[in-house]
């Protein structure tokens, strides 16, 4: 008799457990407000990435096309994947001394792993991450980018004690080069 009781209590317990599960899915079926889907291409307008989002590397330029990169190559040394190449020139400045300036700051987006070591190690805070996230292109060569804009120059700052490095979340919103 005991086994017969167990037989029916098994059925009852089983049905009860199944009913519990059905209630969970049933609850969400009748609560369409809880839908979490984001409809991507339509919500481009409202879609705003977080300020710290590591989209792609940029060399921050101000409105007068000045940047801070002096071509020291520390980012190139720190990059674990060789995705940064610095081509620097040496030009004489007003005092007649040879000064290292940047010719091309080449960035291979296809090799970048977004470890942020370049941004962290940059001594002149020239590098930053933009919030650009739509990287798809049809030609692989387009993923190799020159970060300094044509005609841009290094911004000469008056000699002053170096300010502490600001956190990386204060980066410019967009890269005008793109």
């Amino acid at each position, binding site marked *: 008799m005991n086994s017969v009781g167990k037989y029916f209590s098994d059925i009852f317990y089983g049905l009860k457990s*199944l009913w519990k599960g059905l209630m969970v*899915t049933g609850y*969400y*079926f009748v609560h369409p407000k*809880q*839908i979490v889907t984001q409809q991507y291409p339509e919500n481009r307008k409202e879609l705003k990435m977080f300020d710290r989002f590591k989209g792609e590397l940029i060399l921050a330029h101000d409105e007068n096309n000045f940047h801070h990169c002096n071509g020291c190559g520390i980012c190139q040394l720190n990059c674990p994947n060789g995705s940064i190449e610095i081509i620097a020139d040496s030009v004489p400045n007003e005092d007649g001394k040879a000064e290292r300036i940047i010719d091309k700051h080449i960035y291979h987006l296809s090799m970048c792993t977004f470890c942020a070591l370049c941004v962290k190690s940059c001594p002149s805070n020239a590098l930053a991450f933009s919030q650009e996230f739509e990287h798809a292109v049809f030609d692989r060569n387009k993923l190799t980018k020159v970060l300094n804009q044509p005609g841009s120059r290094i911004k000469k700052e008056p000699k002053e004690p170096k300010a502490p490095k600001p956190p990386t979340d204060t980066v410019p919103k967009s890269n005008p080069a793109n």
Partner: protein
Amino acid sequence: MPFNIYDFSGTTKAIDQFLYAKMPPTWAFITELAIVGLIILLFYAVIGLYLVYLERKVCAFMQNRVGPNRVGKWGLFQTIADLIKLLMKELITIRKADKLLFNIAPFIVIIASFMAIAAIPFAKGLHAVDFNIGVFYMMAVSSIGVIGILLAGWSSNSKYSLIGAMRSGAQVVSYELSVGLALLSVVIFSGSMQLSTIIESQANGWWIFKGHIPAIISFVIFLIASTAEINRGPFDLAEAESELTAGFHTEYSGIRFAFFFLGEYMNMFIVASLAATVFLGGWMPLHIGNLQGFNHVMDFIPPIFWYFGKTIFIMYLIMWFKWTFPRLRIDQLLTLEWKYLLPINLVNILIISFIVLMGWYIK
């Protein structure tokens, strides 16, 4: 009977007489066959496609998603776009596959469900054939489909397919029993196997209400067993995509795959409409005892709506099961059938026979 205003038999009779008046009897008969065939074919395609859409929407809402929403308003044309895509895809031929069986397997599956549709009464006077052994016919025809599944698994020369097909064979053969016995309970109640008679017998109340608890038990068993028979989750062991990638149709592509896919959804439709017909009164409106006013209001809803409403309700239940439960294992599946469903069913039949003998059900 007030719902005679929605009776289709007059219309069909008129068409029949018109055709026989214009043509020799043989031709009239052939024309009728062609018309009915064409209508069913169209109906089949439309229902099949929109069932896929319905399923995708239902599961999406259960999973906090929106489901298809790109092609057309609310994604209404998504499945049609899918069908066009499947039509244009390459039919991959499998080396060392049994070509003949490999090619006819999808057709067997689809023909089985096609034949079953013929006997479904959609409304009064709106069915292709009204066999006096309708229930028996539906059972017989719908189980032809498993032959197609077995052939597909065996002929595609793939181990995943073979395991899927064998699982499906074991599953359908055992669950056929429960489906049959569950239907038998209503046959005992109504004393007929003819679907139209079964519906007429429910004019004053559906069998699920009239038959007391035994009928409800039969209904639940029918739901479980038929879900298993049409290879849907949680009994989708024949496909079991997390185990066998796709089971019996692993090697199928393009429109051949679409046939299996459509066949599966149509089987769901057939099972749901059979359940609606037998247990929930088919196209019969809901009548409660002697509430004349309420009954009259119900009568004005056309029977075709009643029929589709009930069918969709049962299909929703089947979908609800699929999107909630994890899959059973093959031995548990057979345990469920042979140790639980079948004994309960047999005892249930016994009780029903006794009730009918004593006349204790609501007449």
